[in-house]
């Protein structure tokens, strides 16, 4: 058994961590937070140049061909920051959708431009309030023209192309590839301003179907794969929060002793550590399932989604708590992670959705 990343990938991880700790500082995120910019184009360009966006895209389509384990490793490091870049939207969702469902021509047209950073992607699933559900999809394509309302779309305001979930002429759920130039988009205010979010009002917008209609199953397949990659970001973010809390608890004194010597703090952070390690171990299994395209992938995805979402929410809120008063001020970074935790934990569907799905998958497995 070898249930760990290879030395090459660990080296990639260390390099990524070093790069991001210098280039993707909270100060960078704050430019988006304060509304100065909708994403950090410089950072995005640098990430593209290192080949990260196309890490899991095969070399024939312009990717780095590092495979999914490589993308997982990078996801954890990106999650460790609150980098204001459309990495998840582009690499885990748009590129994955095209890889999963696109025709050969579509792959050749789009993937190289995604991999080199010249095209930003996004995924337009939701139509207002609600967790992923085929019954909630009203968007419809008629004669290659998409109509409907989609919101919120993460990175929708800055993307060049969207993968849109809509009904085709036959009433089947399908994925559509929608170039966004000229499409009516409105920016939305959200709890995580370090990512752009937009609303699409589609009125016969020109789009092409991604391969053949795959129905809701295809959407779910995309969500499953993305859930594993998101989980690595969540694990990275949880770890960042735990490290922040730990450092603060070692350095901050009250009653003449480091606050980290009080069991109220020690045991709180031990609980965060436990949640993080469980999530990390489940994420490793997800990475294996993704790389091996295992039949266990859906179950692995739902499992890690549940534990990683729990871990990041816990780690980010208890990081604030450990910091005390300073922790809920705007100028201290704790809240950036708390906001991001909730954003990552609701995009792709919230915990209630994934818990229910997890049990359905257990039932299916047991019935088999």
């Amino acid at each position, binding site marked *: 058994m070898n249930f760990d990343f290879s030395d090459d990938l660990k080296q990639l991880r260390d390099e990524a961590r070093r790069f991001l700790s210098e280039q993707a500082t909270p100060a960078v995120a704050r430019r988006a937070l304060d509304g100065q910019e909708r994403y950090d184009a410089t950072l995005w360009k640098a990430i593209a140049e290192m080949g990260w966006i196309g890490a899991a895209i095969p070399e024939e389509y312009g990717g780095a061909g590092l495979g999914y384990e490589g993308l997982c490793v990078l996801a954890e490091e990106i999650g460790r920051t609150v980098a204001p870049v459309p990495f998840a939207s582009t690499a885990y969702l748009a590129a994955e959708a095209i890889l999963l469902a696109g025709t050969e021509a579509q792959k050749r047209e789009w993937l190289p431009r995604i991999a080199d950073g010249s095209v930003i992607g996004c995924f337009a*699933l*939701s139509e*207002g*309030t*609600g*967790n*992923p*559900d085929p*019954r*909630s999809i009203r968007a419809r394509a008629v004669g290659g023209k998409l109509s409907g309302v989609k*919101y*919120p779309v*993460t990175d929708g305001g800055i993307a060049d192309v969207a993968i849109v979930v809509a009904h085709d002429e036959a009433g089947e759920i399908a994925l559509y590839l929608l170039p966004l130039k000229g499409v009516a988009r409105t920016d*939305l*205010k*959200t*709890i*995580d301003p370090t990512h752009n*979010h937009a609303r699409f009002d589609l009125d016969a917008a020109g789009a092409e179907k991604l391969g053949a209609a795959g129905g809701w199953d295809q959407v779910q397949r995309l969500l499953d794969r993305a859930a594993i990659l998101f989980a690595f970001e969540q694990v990275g973010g949880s770890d960042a929060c735990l490290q922040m809390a730990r450092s*603060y608890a070692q*350095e*901050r*004194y*009250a*009653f*003449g*002793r*480091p606050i980290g010597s*009080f069991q*109220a*703090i020690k045991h709180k952070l031990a609980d965060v550590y436990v949640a993080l390690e469980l999530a990390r171990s489940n994420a490793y299994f997800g990475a294996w399932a993704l790389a091996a395209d295992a039949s266990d992938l859906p179950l692995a995805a739902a499992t890690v989604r549940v534990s990683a979402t729990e871990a990041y*929410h816990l780690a980010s*809120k208890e990081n*604030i*708590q450990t910091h*005390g*008063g*300073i*922790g*809920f*001020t*705007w*100028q201290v970074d*704790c*809240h950036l992670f*708390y*906001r991001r935790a*909730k*954003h990552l*934990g*609701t*995009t*792709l*569907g*919230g*915990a*209630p*959705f994934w*818990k*229910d799905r997890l049990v359905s998958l257990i039932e299916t497995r047991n019935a088999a």
Partner: protein
Amino acid sequence: MDFNDTPEEATFRAEVRSFLQANAQPKAGTRPVLRQSGIDAEGVRRCKEWQAKKADAGFAGLTWPKRFGGREASPIMQVIYNQEEDNYVVPKGLYEIGLGMCIPTMMAYAKPEQLERYVKPALRGEEVWCQLFSEPAGGSDLAALRTRAEKDGDDWVINGQKIWTSGAHLSDFGIIVVRTDPNVPKHEGLTFFFLDMKSPGIEIRPIHQMSGARHFNEVFFTDVRVPDAQRLGAVGQGWKVSLTTLMNERLAVGDVQRPDVDDLVELARTVTVDGQPAIRNGAVRERIAEWYARSQGLKFTRFRTITALSRGETPGPENSIHKLVNASKLQDIASYGIDLMGEAGILVDDEVAEAYGMFQAALLSSPSSRIAGGSDEILRNIIAERVLGLPGDIRVDKNVPFNKVPSGSR
């Protein structure tokens, strides 16, 4: 057991009701006020107007001595007034600290002529007071404050920094505790003053919270002179005076925080889970039941406190449970409600977001609820030590001169 007023209470309640009916707007809808981004000039004007009206009608300082414009009423009357006022839209947020904490401390320690000068203007809302206790290095260790005062002739000269001062920028006066002797243990070297907030050398900066709110301030002191006549209590007795102030905090009734469980019920009727209203889902029902039981438990705990008050008893540290339970409940309800909304749960714009963005606002404000005014950890300590009688934490700073106590780098 009954829920009825005594005849005296009923008479008073009727009096309050007719005052409020004549002078204030009933709370109409259920839409909560979310973003409290501090009080602007117009807000201050409305607060002052309302306070003067209350004072003129005899509803300000209900429990205070008559010679200061009070009624010498029992605390239960204050509760009844608050219950009734809560049904009306009235301007709030300017006088709670001054009238609830500062002036009572003055009444306990200031000279008669000072009380003549300060109490009535405060009661009528003409002068606003703030409380300057917390410091960056203190946090939960309130007494570990470092702002120092040195005697210079008949004055004391204050240097240092206070933090988390609500309404400092709107205040005319403040009460402050400072260190006058760093060579003795923590609690022994403190002295208490009141001061003019317009004194030279005071600089006030608002604190920007993660929720966007700016309720609190940092207050910087550079060679601020305070006459020794404005000292409250003896030199070195500042901690004892502070306890008087803090004891008055205990009775403060927390505002109802939203979303509460009723808002979650409403949300669960609106959003769907697996094609059905969320309220049909067992997991959602279980959460609602648990939070409902907790909310009701707090409500009836308050009724028990009110009963004790009406018998002339003094509520004790057991009241710490309200904030402890409410703060986490708020955070958890907010978080869960957002999860039910799915991806759109991140929307905060009150025109677009479900339930006017109430859940999102609470997600961002609840972390401060778990910290400000006694963190979860401090409240559990209070319950363990002062209600259950368990031993205190080991105190390494006990009997150690303050300037020898380890203080770390943050």
